[in-house]
């Protein structure tokens, strides 16, 4: 896949494998995508498709037994995979790249007030020259106000357990935005919340991203979310990108059978709740040929013969399916 190098973040042919006692697990296989300044990219797929691994790779927080066998992660012109641990923790994590964790209930240390914890990030990563406590508090209060937390000053002295789930997630968004990062990685930020709160939180995130010019990588499995706030979508299956491109054509006319199947899972129609039969292909022994073949409704015997290649379509969409490979 050819990717323009002028983007904020450009993940190129990223392949990650994890060494296990049962052999190498191929978690990611040549994943590529790009995020432009101020854009929201949705990363979609079932559990176990490698979405979180993508985020961990960007932050350099892969487990010790993981190996990046191939690829580049170009962020503002430098390859994050080439940076060492101290460079990553002093200049990337928390500073240029913010992270919003999955479960707000457990994302704070229960023993400290939220104010203390969030301001800790400011102390290491705030703008050089104004890392003092007071300017951190000012910035945080401004952000808490923006994420619609009432009475932000007194909230700083509260402990995590004194907040509701939605409030905690707002606090996490404020924490991720505190040091004005260029990119925010949101790992399923709303799975632990109820539907109404989800909507509010996601719109808040998207709006703030647009306002501050921050790009967002949103990991989710909810198409409803994606259709509302994302600019582009990357659909992953078993560690591979299967369909990637601008939101509108993909939602109107999904091509890859996996995309179609995922969209049918969304319970917005009157039909009963449906799923995709089968489970995600094992990363230890991926099937030969197309990895989705065992579950694909359009699968043909010929699909197992070869790996598919990316095809760029007229509407700017990349497809990774042997069917389309044939046509062109």
């Amino acid at each position: 896949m050819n990717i323009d190098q002028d983007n904020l973040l450009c993940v190129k042919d990223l392949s990650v494998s994890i060494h296990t006692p049962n052999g190498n697990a191929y978690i990611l296989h040549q994943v590529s995508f790009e995020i432009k300044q101020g854009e929201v990219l949705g990363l979609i797929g079932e559990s176990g498709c490698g979405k979180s691994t993508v985020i961990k790779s960007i932050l350099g927080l892969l487990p010790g037994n993981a190996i990046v066998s191939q690829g580049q992660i170009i962020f503002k012109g430098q390859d994050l995979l080439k940076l060492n641990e101290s460079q990553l923790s002093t200049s990337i994590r928390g500073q240029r790249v913010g992270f919003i964790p999955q479960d707000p209930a457990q994302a704070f240390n229960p023993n400290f007030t939220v104010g203390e914890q969030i301001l800790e990030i400011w102390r290491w990563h705030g703008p050089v020259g104004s890392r003092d406590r007071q300017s951190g508090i000012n910035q945080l209060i401004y952000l808490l106000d923006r994420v619609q937390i009432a009475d932000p000053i007194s909230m700083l002295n509260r402990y995590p357990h004194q907040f509701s789930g939605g409030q905690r997630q707002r606090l996490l968004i404020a924490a991720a935005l505190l040091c004005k990062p260029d990119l925010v990685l949101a790992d399923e930020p709303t799975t632990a919340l109820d539907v109404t709160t989800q909507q509010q939180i996601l719109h808040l995130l998207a709006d703030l991203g647009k306002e501050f010019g921050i790009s967002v990588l949103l990991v989710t499995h909810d198409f409803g979310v994606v259709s509302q706030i994302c600019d582009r979508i990357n659909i992953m299956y078993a560690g591979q990108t299967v369909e990637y491109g601008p939101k509108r054509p993909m939602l109107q006319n999904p091509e890859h059978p996996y995309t179609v199947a995922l969209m049918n899972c969304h319970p917005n129609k009157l039909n009963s709740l449906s799923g995709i039969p089968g489970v995600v292909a094992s990363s230890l022994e991926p099937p030969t040929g197309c990895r989705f073949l065992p579950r694909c409704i359009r699968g043909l015997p010929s699909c197992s013969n070869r790996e598919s290649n990316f095809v760029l379509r007229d509407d700017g969409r990349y497809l990774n399916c042997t069917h389309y490979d044939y046509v062109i």
Partner: protein
Amino acid sequence: MKYLIGLLIRDKTAVLGFFLFAVIFFCAIGGEYMVPYPEDAFDAKPWQRMLPPSAEHIFGTDGMGRDVFSRLVLGSRIALIIAFVTVFFSMIIGVPLGLFAGYYGKKFGQFIMRLTDVFLAVPQLVLALVFATIMRPSVSTAMLALTITYWPLFCRVVYSETRRVAASPFVDALEAAGCSSKRILFMHILPNVLPVIIIRATIGMGVTILVAAALGFLGLGAVPPTPEWGLMIAESQRYLPSGWWISVFPGIAILITVLSFNLIGDALRDAIDPRLRRSR
């Protein structure tokens, strides 16, 4: 800090614990000036053997004619020194080892845990007995033996608690926010492990006093005529049951000391955990 003190004052059992501890502590500091017969700590007075409790000797006198009350008060110093020194050094060894073993690396952690297994496989009292036998019996030998046998317990609880806390999502979030691993370990994991350390320490103080008393009872801790509670009970067994006061009062002293440590420990644990504060 002010808030913490306020919480502890409102907690009735904590106040009781601190009060008992304060009494014992003052006895330990200024025992000589508080007791009627300070010289009785060491000097035998054969002409007043085995006197039952009276106005003159409120807890009676023992087989050597020494005032039991005076010896009890003076014995508190040794009891507290044994408890604090043993628990302090056990913590110095056990807590950092447990933290590092739980947070860094599998091999180091496994090595440390197998090491503690070796120590834990031998009952504490037996190991303490061995040490006391190899070296000359004295209070410091008893403290050394108790430290060597007590640190693995600290190490174990800190290790397992560190592993539990290190796996929690807030540690991932901190890593993703660019927090150094040293800072995560000492500023974030350690405070979460603190409650179990406090529990372990207060239980440890109580147990240590008891084991030290047992060592003294067996003649392997403090040597006569040191006014040590365990030793006092040991010496008194010859005079039972008629001379009951000689053993009962040291026993009560041990009980009260152990109780005060446990009450304080429980109160501290509840006070430092913000989630438990609500219930008060």
